[in-house]
């Protein structure tokens, strides 16, 4: 077990190396020059050349990569080209709000989706099933920028009870934070809930017919226990997988929700950096996300073994 964990963590190194290399090359594949992007329309060639020299963009690619990677090994992610902030604190400061939003959205999604999915599966082809699926599909078809705006219209304008946007640090003002969290978390949660609900339903349908569910019923235990402990207990693997994926996607950033709610998350930061060709930030963000994914997936794999004793690690 310990060996396995160590092995998985050790596999981070080649992954990070690969990711850093790909990230480095990919962002440079995109046309456009950070110096030009920074200096804008007015800059003359001299200013651009000066900036390029300052950013070491005039050096051969491999040199750029190695000096970046070397600094990285020392924990130095460099500074943003746009505005000169240090990359690591910049990413960290954006990851916090994203993580909080993600957690809230996932929680909302789970609270809605799992019961809805289970009910839809157990009451298959009844009104409950149809309504749950219908609502889920509405949630899916409604892009988050629309849902977000509609929520703002409803809860900030028509019934002005929640702020339309903005992020309040929970350390500064917990109440304010929670109020600012509600709408974006709902927006995101709704989209997640739709998939989780449908996945839960499908997965439950797979197991509800199993012989062991029949055995459970033959024991005369409470129907809820048959459904939750026996059926749902066996239906969790795809759901957990999906949650792992969702968590990854959320932590990678949710640009649109962040944009609509002016939430200072990592998604918008990354996308802005991509568009500004802010190489160090993009590279740093990709590395950070890759690390997070590897950890999330490791956690997912461990959870599998807890859910299903037949699953082996390694």
């Amino acid at each position, binding site marked *: *077990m310990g060996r396995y964990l160590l092995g998985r963590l050790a596999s981070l190194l080649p992954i990070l190396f690969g990711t850093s290399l790909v990230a480095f090359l990919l962002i440079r594949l995109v046309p456009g020059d950070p110096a030009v992007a920074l200096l804008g329309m007015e800059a003359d060639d001299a200013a651009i050349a000066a900036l390029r020299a300052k950013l070491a963009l005039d050096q051969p690619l491999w040199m750029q990569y190695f000096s970046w990677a070397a600094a990285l090994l020392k924990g130095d992610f460099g500074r943003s080209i746009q505005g000169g902030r240090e990359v690591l604190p910049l990413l960290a400061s954006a990851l916090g709000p994203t993580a909080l939003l993600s957690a809230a959205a996932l929680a909302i999604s789970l609270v809605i989706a799992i019961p809805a999915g289970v009910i839809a599966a157990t009451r298959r082809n009844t009104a409950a099933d149809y309504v749950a699926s219908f609502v889920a599909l509405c949630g899916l078809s409604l892009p988050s920028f629309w849902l977000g705006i509609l929520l703002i219209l409803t809860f900030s304008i028509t019934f002005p009870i929640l702020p339309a946007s903005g992020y309040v640090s929970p350390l500064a003002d917990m109440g304010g934070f929670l109020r600012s969290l509600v709408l974006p978390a709902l927006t995101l949660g709704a989209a997640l809930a739709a998939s989780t609900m449908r996945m839960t339903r499908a997965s439950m349908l797979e197991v509800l017919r199993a*012989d062991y569910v029949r055995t459970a019923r033959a024991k005369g235990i409470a129907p809820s226990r048959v459904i939750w402990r026996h059926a749902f207990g066996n239906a969790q693997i795809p759901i957990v997988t999906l949650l792992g994926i969702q968590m990854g996607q959320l932590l990678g950033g949710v640009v649109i929700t962040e944009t609509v709610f002016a939430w200072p998350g990592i998604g918008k930061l990354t996308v802005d950096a991509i568009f500004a060709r802010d190489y160090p930030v993009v590279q740093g963000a990709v590395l950070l996300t890759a690390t997070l994914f590897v950890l999330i997936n490791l956690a997912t794999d*461990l959870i599998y*073994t*807890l859910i299903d*004793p037949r699953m082996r690690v390694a």
Partner: protein
Amino acid sequence: MTAPLLEVRGLNKIYRSGGGFLRAPREAQVVKDVGFTVGRGEVFGLVGESGSGKTTIGRMLLRLTEADSGEILFDGQDVRALGPAALRGFRRRAQMIFQDPFASLDPRVRVGDAIAAPIRLHGLRPAGSVKDRVVELLEMVGLSAAHADRHPHAFSGGQRQRVAIARALAVEPELIVCDEPVSALDLSVQAQVVNLLADLSARLGVAYVFISHDMAVVRHLASHVGVLYAGRLVETGPAAAVLGAPRHPYTRMLLAASPRPHAAGRRERAEATGEPPSPYGREPGCRFASRCPHAVAACRAAEPPLDAFADGARFAACIRAAELGPETAPAPEGAPSPAFQTRMALLRAARAEGRAASPDAPA
């Protein structure tokens, strides 16, 4: 005589279980030092205590579970050393009928397709006649073509078992590991299947490792038997000898406990005493000692070796085997009633008559 079809030597298997997320695994030696040989056309009956490792041995023979150590020679070839391609070749020649037929059938595949797939895979019949072959196989095990397009869940337990048998036979293997192949069949179908297996063995030289708890069936089919107790062979030898004159106390106990039809009422069976041994952390000495009526102090000291005795064709792992001597054959069955005998005679006669009248007419 050429090399036997299957030769097993020193097979061992340890399971690590409970090695979950937080706990350290526990080790259980479930198969220890098992060896036997099966010649072409022979049936090796493997009987023994439930949980003694029969299924595990069967799975190891086909490399579905990897043995920890030991040798499995199939037609002189070391099965444990086969590469992936050679392994597939080997599996065309050796088959397994699983203990739980339902678990071993893909719920999403119609049984007709399940049987046809290996035929197609190994190109055993031209494409056009695969269907016919499937129907033929189904009928061999007492099912009909109508069953071919059903999914496993729509079958009864015995029907599933027959599907599993038909599927194994489809490959036309030289060796079949049968794990309780007839336990879920009614006697008539059981007779049909047993006859079929015997026929294949006689005509085509198919060999079986036949795992069963039914001593009558084992006696009927097997040429040799091995008696397994707690992962170890405690007695082996020719079937008639072992089952007719058991030497090991466990074998005796098995035979004594075997129910017999026509017995007048319930016989008082010697309720086995003691606990079956735990596979985790075995105590030294004979595994059966805790339940053995003949156990002495020496039995608990050291594991008795599987010693040859008598003519050298029989082996038993009991230090007192010689001393105890062969048990007399178990008490004869209670005599059938006159009414029974009359009607049975009528049945035989009527059958014989019917067959003579139309040799191949369906009943």
